């Protein structure tokens, strides 16, 4: 009988894999917008917008995602601060323009806030503080969070992530999609500015800001991916959840993200109050 490793090598030729989908690239030149600084790749005139498109064979998950996108856009359009962002989406996804009478936004999906936003396990501020290695910063202008979540590996970063949820605060719209006004995420790590800018995409903008003496970034635009370098040197990928504007800054090795339909000044004020 052949050696086990020889058998495994032989088996490789006989494994039945799912058919590989044909990916192809479609790269329209992005429209430049004046004002806020663009990610450097695009600024150098080498960007192409959304670079990858699947072949016409649209898979069912993508069809579902497209339908969900329409619903998300319609619901978000109810909020004035989101309209600019939605308009940019409309330019990219013309199907949104064909919806004649936007229906009433769907009720919140079932499940807790933590489940809907994949924030981890519910906990208390005190319990979370005992678990993590940094001093959890709470924005004094918002007061105590309504909910606290802790996300540990393997679903969370290597040194955990704490989410402070504010379901409603005066002067800050509550998302009908998420039921959340402000989300504050904290994790040990650092961002690489250049790499970080690449993830913003052609429609996003990023602006350097000072948050109570800490270097930070004010990000606007459609929902975008986000990744940072964890304390162990590996990268952690995530998505900014509230599809609104986001402030990110480095608080002495703790990466703080404040997400919500906030103005730039509101967000900086919140960040400085940590």
């Amino acid at each position: 009988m052949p050696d086990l490793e020889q058998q495994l090598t032989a088996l490789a030729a006989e494994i039945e894999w799912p058919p590989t989908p044909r990916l192809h690239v479609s790269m329209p030149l992005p429209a430049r917008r004046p004002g806020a600084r663009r990610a450097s790749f695009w600024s150098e005139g080498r960007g192409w917008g959304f670079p990858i498109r699947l072949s016409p064979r649209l898979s069912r998950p993508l069809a579902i995602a497209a339908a969900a996108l329409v619903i998300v856009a319609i619901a978000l359009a109810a909020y004035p601060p989101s309209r600019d962002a939605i308009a940019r989406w409309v330019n990219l996804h013309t199907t949104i323009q064909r919806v004649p009478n936007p229906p009433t936004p769907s009720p919140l999906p079932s499940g807790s806030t933590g489940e809907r936003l994949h924030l981890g396990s519910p906990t208390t501020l005190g319990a979370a503080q005992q678990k993590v290695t940094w001093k959890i910063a709470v924005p004094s202008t918002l007061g105590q969070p309504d909910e606290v979540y802790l996300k540990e590996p393997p679903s969370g970063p290597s040194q955990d992530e704490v989410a402070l949820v504010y379901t409603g605060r005066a002067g800050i719209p509550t998302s009908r999609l998420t039921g959340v006004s402000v989300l504050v995420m904290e994790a040990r790590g650092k961002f690489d500015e250049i790499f970080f800018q690449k993830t913003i995409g052609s429609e996003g903008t990023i602006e350097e800001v000072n948050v109570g003496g800490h270097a930070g970034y004010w990000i606007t635009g459609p929902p975008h991916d986000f990744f940072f370098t964890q304390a162990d040197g590996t990268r952690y990928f995530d998505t900014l959840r509230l599809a609104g504007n986001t402030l990110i800054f480095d608080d002495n090795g703790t990466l703080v993200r404040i997400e919500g339909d906030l103005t730039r000044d509101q967000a900086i004020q919140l960040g400085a109050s940590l």
Partner: protein
Amino acid sequence: MEGRPADDPDLITRAQRGDKAAYEEIVQRYQQIAFRTAYVVTGSAADAEDAAQEGFMKAFRALDRFRAGADLRPWLLRIVANEARNRVRSSGRRHQLELRLTEGFRPGDAAPSPEAVAVAADERRRLLETINALSEDDRLVIASRYFLDLSGEETAAALGIPEGTVKSRLSRALARLRARVEEAASA
């Protein structure tokens, strides 16, 4: 296993300069191994397809950070595999990877390797069933190294573990597989 054409650096340079065709060629060249790697990680063809698409998009956005002279394939696979793992994490579910044999294969068909000819069909089927019954960690490392033919660096990227851990994990997985195969043979 897909080859690694010598002109990858040229394609990268051209893509970094804005040559759309060059990036298309990179995508076409590596889409199969990227998709299969994502499939091993997610256990779902649909999730793997999405992960491969997103992974190539992110790779494109990060292309000018690609280190000159580095190997393109492990870099791409790392990004795609990261995307695949994130999808598993965010969905809170992982489909169990269930590997199957290609139907209709017979030794002698499609120019199998000499080793393939030597292994009887029922032995191959039982071996794969045993692999499918292993723990997730064991299945993934065996599938990555033997079925995807990934290098140690690429396996580390696909599984999100240090390269040094790949060897020890693979060794332990093979030991457990061998024990189960021997146990089944003596039963």
